[in-house]
C-alpha cells in the first residue's frame, strides 16, 4: 500500500512544482501520400492525419483528468515533407504546409512538425524545393513547424545547406517581421537529428519509424529544482543521486501516460524523451536548477560543469524508468522559454559564447535566441556551422533556432507570448565570417565516424 507521504509527494510535484507531461506527440507516416498531383497528395495527407489523430486530443484530456497530471500539449509529427514533395510535378510546396495547418487545426493540436528535409550529405529536387519554400510556409501557416538536418557524424556538414539556411532564417524573419520574426521560432537547423523527437519545433516522423506511433515528452524542471534545494550543502555524489531519483519519478509518469495513451489510441508506444523542458513560468526553469546548485547566476563560471552533471543525472535516472528512451533526452536551454535564462542574459551573466559551450554538454543547442535584425545571413550560417561542428564531433544532436529580430538591436526584446515566451536581443561577434561560409561543399565526416 502506498504511504501518505508518497501520495503527497506526487501531489506536491504537480501542484507546486509544475510537474507535467509536456507533450503527447503522434508520429504519422505520410509515405503513402505521394502523388504527382499536389492536390491529390494533399487530400491524402489531410485524410490520413485527421483519421489517425481524431481522438488524440480527447484521449490526452481524459488521461489528464484520470491521473491528475496536466498534459500541456498534444501534437503531431509527420514524415519529412521533402520526401512527399519529391514526386509532385508542379514544384509547389507551400500547399503541403497549408494542408498540414488545416489538418492540425481540425484535430485540435497546437503544432504539427515535419515540414522538414534531411540534407546532411546533399540535396534532392524535393529537398531544394522544400527548403526554398520554408519562409513562405512559416509565414502563411500558424501551426506548422519546419526543420532541416544539415549535418551528421557519419557524413559531415553540408556547408551549402548551412549557408542556405542562413538566408532561409533571415527571410523567415523578414516575412514575419510584424510578429517579431515568429517564423524563426518554428524553424530548427539540426546536426544528428533524432527521428522520434516529440518536442517542437524539431519533431518529425523518421523514415525508419512505424506507420503511426505515440511518443512522450516529460518535463519537470521545477521538481528537480526543489529536490536540489533540499540538498543544499551536500556533496556532488549526493546531488547527482538526488537528481537521478527525481528524474526517475518524473519519467515514470511519462511512461505511464504514454503506455495508456498508446493503448487507447490503438497505436504502438514509441519512446519517452527524458528532457527537462522549461516554460516561461517562474519556478519551471533549467537556469534556476543550475543556480540552486550554488551558482549566483546561470552563465557564470561553473555553469557548464553544473549543466553536465544535471544532464547526466537526468539520463541515468530516466533510463531506469522507461522501457524505451529516445528523442532528444537531455536538458533544454532555450533562452526565451526560460525565465531564469532571460534574467541571466539581462544581468549580463549569460552570453552567446557561454550558451554555445553549454550546448556541448546537453541536448539541443542554441535555442530560441534573438539576435539583432541587421545580422547577415553569413553570420547566421557561421553560428549554425559552429553548432553543427559541436554535434558532429561529439556524436550528439545539436540544433540552432535563432531569431534575427527585424528592426531590433541589442537590449530590445522580442515577444512571442505563450510557451515561446520573450527574449532579449543578444550581442554577436562583430567580425565577418563571409569568406569562410561561402567556400561551399561539405566538411568531411570526422575520423571517429569510421567505426566499422
Amino acid at each position, binding site marked *: *500500500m*502506498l*504511504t*501518505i507521504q*508518497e*501520495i*503527497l*509527494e*506526487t*501531489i506536491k510535484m504537480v501542484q507546486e512544482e509544475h510537474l507535467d507531461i509536456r507533450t503527447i506527440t503522434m508520429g504519422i507516416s505520410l509515405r503513402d501520400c505521394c502523388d504527382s498531383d499536389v492536390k491529390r497528395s494533399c487530400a491524402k495527407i489531410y485524410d490520413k492525419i485527421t483519421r489517425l489523430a481524431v481522438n488524440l486530443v480527447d484521449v490526452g484530456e481524459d488521461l489528464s*483528468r*484520470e*491521473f*491528475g*497530471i496536466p498534459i500541456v500539449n498534444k501534437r503531431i509529427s509527420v514524415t519529412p515533407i521533402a520526401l512527399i514533395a519529391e514526386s509532385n510535378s508542379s514544384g509547389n510546396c507551400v500547399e503541403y504546409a497549408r494542408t498540414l495547418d488545416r489538418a492540425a487545426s481540425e484535430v485540435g493540436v497546437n503544432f504539427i512538425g515535419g515540414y522538414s528535409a534531411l540534407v546532411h550529405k546533399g540535396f534532392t529536387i524535393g529537398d531544394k524545393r522544400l527548403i526554398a519554400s520554408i519562409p513562405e510556409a512559416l509565414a502563411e501557416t500558424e501551426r506548422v513547424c519546419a526543420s532541416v538536418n544539415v549535418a551528421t557524424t557519419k557524413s559531415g556538414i553540408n556547408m551549402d545547406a548551412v549557408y542556405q539556411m542562413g538566408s532561409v532564417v533571415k527571410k523567415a524573419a523578414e516575412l514575419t517581421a510584424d510578429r517579431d520574426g515568429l517564423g524563426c521560432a518554428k524553424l530548427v537547423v539540426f546536426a544528428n537529428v533524432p527521428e522520434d523527437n516529440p518536442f517542437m519545433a524539431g519533431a518529425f516522423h523518421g523514415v525508419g519509424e512505424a506507420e503511426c506511433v505515440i511518443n512522450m515528452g516529460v518535463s519537470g524542471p521545477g521538481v528537480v529544482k526543489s529536490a536540489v534545494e533540499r540538498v543544499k550543502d551536500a556533496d556532488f555524489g549526493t546531488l547527482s543521486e538526488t537528481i537521478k531519483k527525481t528524474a526517475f*519519478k518524473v519519467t*515514470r*509518469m511519462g*511512461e*505511464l501516460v504514454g503506455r*495508456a495513451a498508446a493503448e487507447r489510441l490503438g497505436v504502438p508506444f514509441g519512446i519517452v524523451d527524458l528532457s527537462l523542458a522549461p516554460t516561461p513560468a517562474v519556478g519551471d526553469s533549467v537556469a534556476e536548477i543550475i543556480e540552486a546548485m550554488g551558482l549566483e547566476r546561470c552563465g557564470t563560471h561553473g555553469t557548464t560543469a553544473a549543466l553536465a552533471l544535471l544532464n547526466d543525472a537526468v539520463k541515468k535516472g530516466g533510463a531506469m524508468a522507461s522501457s524505451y528512451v529516445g528523442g532528444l533526452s537531455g536538458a533544454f536551454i532555450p533562452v526565451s522559454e526560460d525565465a531564469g535564462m532571460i534574467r541571466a542574459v539581462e544581468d549580463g551573466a549569460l552570453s552567446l559564447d557561454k550558451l554555445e559551450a553549454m550546448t556541448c554538454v546537453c541536448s539541443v543547442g542554441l535555442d530560441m535566441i534573438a539576435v539583432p535584425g541587421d545580422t547577415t545571413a553569413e553570420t547566421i550560417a557561421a553560428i549554425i556551422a559552429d553548432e553543427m561542428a559541436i554535434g558532429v564531433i561529439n556524436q550528439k544532436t545539436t540544433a540552432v533556432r535563432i531569431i534575427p529580430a527585424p528592426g531590433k538591436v541589442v537590449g530590445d526584446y522580442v515577444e512571442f507570448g505563450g510557451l515561446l515566451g520573450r527574449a532579449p536581443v543578444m550581442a554577436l561577434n562583430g567580425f565577418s565570417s563571409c569568406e569562410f561560409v561561402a567556400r561551399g561543399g561539405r566538411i568531411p565526416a570526422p575520423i571517429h565516424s569510421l567505426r566499422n
Partner: protein
Amino acid sequence: MSEKNSVSQKSRVIISVLGPDTVGIIAGVANILSDNKINILDISQTIIQEFLAMVLIADMEKSTIDLYRLKELLAQKGEELGIRIDVQHEDAFSFMHRI
C-alpha cells in the same frame, strides 16, 4: 490491508483532501462515496503546517458513477467546505513510487 490482492487494481483511486481543517470533511467525502457504492479501503491523514492532508484509497469496482463524475461531485463538496478535493487513478502514484 488484507484485501489488497482481491481488489481489482484497475478500479482503485486515490482521493486527496488538502486545506484548512474543518468540521464535516470526512463525513462529506464518505457520504458521496457511500451514495455511489464506492468502497473505502484506507484512510490516513496528517497535519502539515496547520493544513489537513487526508488521503483515502477507494475501490470503484461497484461504483454507480465514473471517475469523471466523482471528480465533479468531490470538487463541488470541496468548494462548499473551502478545501481542495481531487481524485486520481491509483496508477499515477504506484507507477511513480513502486517498481
